[in-house]
């Protein structure tokens, strides 16, 4: 049973020069307990997808079609008040990019964690603070730090604080956008370990958005690769990394260096991602693809099952 089902989602940004097709016909499914890694280069629409699910779009972002079904309820059609009352924080919460700057500098971290609890649940301040303390214990900071200010914490601790905040109202889905990008290697490993343990303990579902495939390989069980507003490949983490089918996925994985095993050649993809104001016809990757055929220039490839169960890919090389 899928917890979250995104079907043919389209979200465009309206600009002076036309629509920027940031999320264009994106579909995927997330089961309970799954950790989905949404990967791709900057500007491919991964953050836009997350903001659409959270309904935190800027004024010029417009949902032009598709469904987001969360627990059998379509949240696209829902009005803002309803979504805020019933879903945001309580069912779906978020960890944003740059935890360093996501915290208010002059409010105790305990109060900041208590804030969504007070706003969304019918509890008093005392009880909310008690729960905030428990959450701080849970993420490994300790309830004794409840009256600290963000500047008194290190980067890793701030990241954990933001994680605690996301857990405040017991959500079933957490969307984390580049949760560890600003952290150093060793602290990042600590935070990721803590996040993995929490996720298992609480049977959380997560969507982790990152450009760093190495990090996703260690944290997720499913991977979706996005390119120019579309998901081009989707599958289990092992099948994506071991048997990538889309040329873009293969090249992208090959671009990440490794510290284990023999040294291999790093791959690179010539050129740069297309302008989403006027995306190329056919397959959006065709200009940079070394296997591009005539059909790729004109016809858009459909998502088809390939290479095993639940491994979907949109490429003309499959079945051609």
């Amino acid at each position, binding site marked *: 049973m899928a917890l979250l089902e995104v079907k043919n989602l389209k979200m465009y940004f309206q600009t002076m020069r036309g629509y920027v097709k940031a999320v264009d016909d994106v579909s995927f499914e997330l089961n309970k307990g799954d950790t989905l890694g949404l990967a791709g*280069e*900057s500007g491919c629409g991964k953050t836009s997808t997350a903001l659409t699910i959270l309904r935190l779009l800027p004024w010029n972002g417009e949902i032009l079609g598709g469904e987001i079904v969360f627990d059998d309820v379509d949240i696209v059609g829902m009005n803002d008040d309803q979504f805020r009352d019933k879903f945001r924080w309580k069912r779906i919460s978020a960890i944003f990019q740059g935890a360093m700057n996501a915290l208010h500098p002059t409010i105790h971290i305990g109060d900041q964690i208590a804030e969504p609890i007070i706003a969304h649940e019918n509890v008093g301040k005392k009880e909310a603070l008690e729960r905030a303390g428990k959450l701080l214990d849970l993420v490994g900071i300790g309830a004794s730090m409840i009256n600290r200010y963000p500047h008194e914490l*290190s*980067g*890793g601790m701030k990241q954990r604080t933001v994680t605690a905040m996301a857990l405040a109202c017991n959500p079933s889905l957490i969307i984390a956008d580049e949760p560890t990008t600003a952290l*150093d*290697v*060793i*602290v*990042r*490993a*600590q935070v*990721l*370990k803590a996040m993995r343990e929490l996720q298992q303990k609480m049977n959380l579902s997560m969507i982790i958005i990152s*450009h*760093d*495939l*190495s*990090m996703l*390989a*260690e944290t997720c069980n499913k991977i979706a690769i996005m390119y120019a507003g579309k998901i081009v490949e989707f599958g289990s*983490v*092992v099948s994506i*990394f*071991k048997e990538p089918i889309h040329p873009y996925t293969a*090249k*992208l*994985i090959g*671009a*990440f*260096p*490794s*510290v*284990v*095993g023999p*040294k291999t050649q*790093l*791959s*690179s*993809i*010539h050129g*740069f991602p297309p302008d989403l104001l006027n995306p190329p016809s056919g397959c959006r990757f065709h200009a940079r693809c070394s296997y591009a055929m005539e059909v790729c220039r004109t016809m858009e490839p459909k998502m088809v099952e390939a290479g095993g169960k639940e491994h979907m890919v949109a490429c003309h090389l499959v079945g051609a």
Partner: protein
Amino acid sequence: MSQDVCIEVQNLKKYFPVKMGFVSTLMSKRVPQVHAVDDISFVIKKEEILGLVGESGCGKTTTGRLLLRLLPATAGKVYFKGLDVTAITDENEMRRLRRKMQIIFQDPYESLNPRMGVFDIIAEPLQLLKVAQNLEELRERVMEVLEDLEMTPPEEYIYRFPHELSGGQRQRVAIARAFVLRPEFLMADEPVSMLDASIRSEVLDLLLGLVKKHHSSFLYITHDIALARYICNRIAVMYLGKIIEKGPTEDIILKPLHPYTEALISAVPVPDPTAKRSDIVIKGEVPSAINPPSGCRFHTRCPYVMQVCKTKEPKMAEIEKNRYVACHKYKA
């Protein structure tokens, strides 16, 4: 000094005074100092690529800036082909040296002047240092370096402004500006960390091609030890202002000796979900560089800590051939 050495650093130190308020300045006897770089020594041979690796705040960027004398050193010496860079007082002499020592900065979105065209950006160092004799030579050198960086045809790019270029192209312009002088020594501080993974290795390959073409020595400063593996001949690992391990790249990656290096490498995520990893995650975060721990600076987090580590600072010693480690675990 032997002929094949390009840069030699001896006991280099850089302390920054901590900014204090007026009252505390009056009250305290001594100004606290950040020990950004504390007594490091290393050598970069001719045509060698050395990687300086460490977490943020370990002093790697400061080290790079000291080498080019973009910062004055507190103590210690930096020799460029036998010439003491820290002792130069004559501005003209320093200027002549700048022709031979160049730098590439991290962020191509900030290091290029948005109001200058690509041609002017690349030609500026040639003009400032009066390298080109005439306009024709100037043009030739700019075109050549653009072609080396595969920005072809160069005519298409020289009239553009930085905002008309993609991130990868901008960084190529930043590289072009450094290489148009054909430097003997080049330092790059995280030159590709702002770029997307898909174009990172392309830009690196072009950069390395130029390093080879001009027989330059190269100091590559990075936090990404996995990427350093693909670039450097040797690696030096820094922790809290000190170099704690140095040696040939593959030896360090596959068999790190210092416990910090070991932890650093095991913390690097691997793009392979089936890879078997040792699960050493050390606790805590890097201590403050204002009051660095006594003895070995890593002792507060080290899983193998002994009594001696807390009091005595370990000396750098050659444990195996070409492998230098500063750790009490090993007896030289």
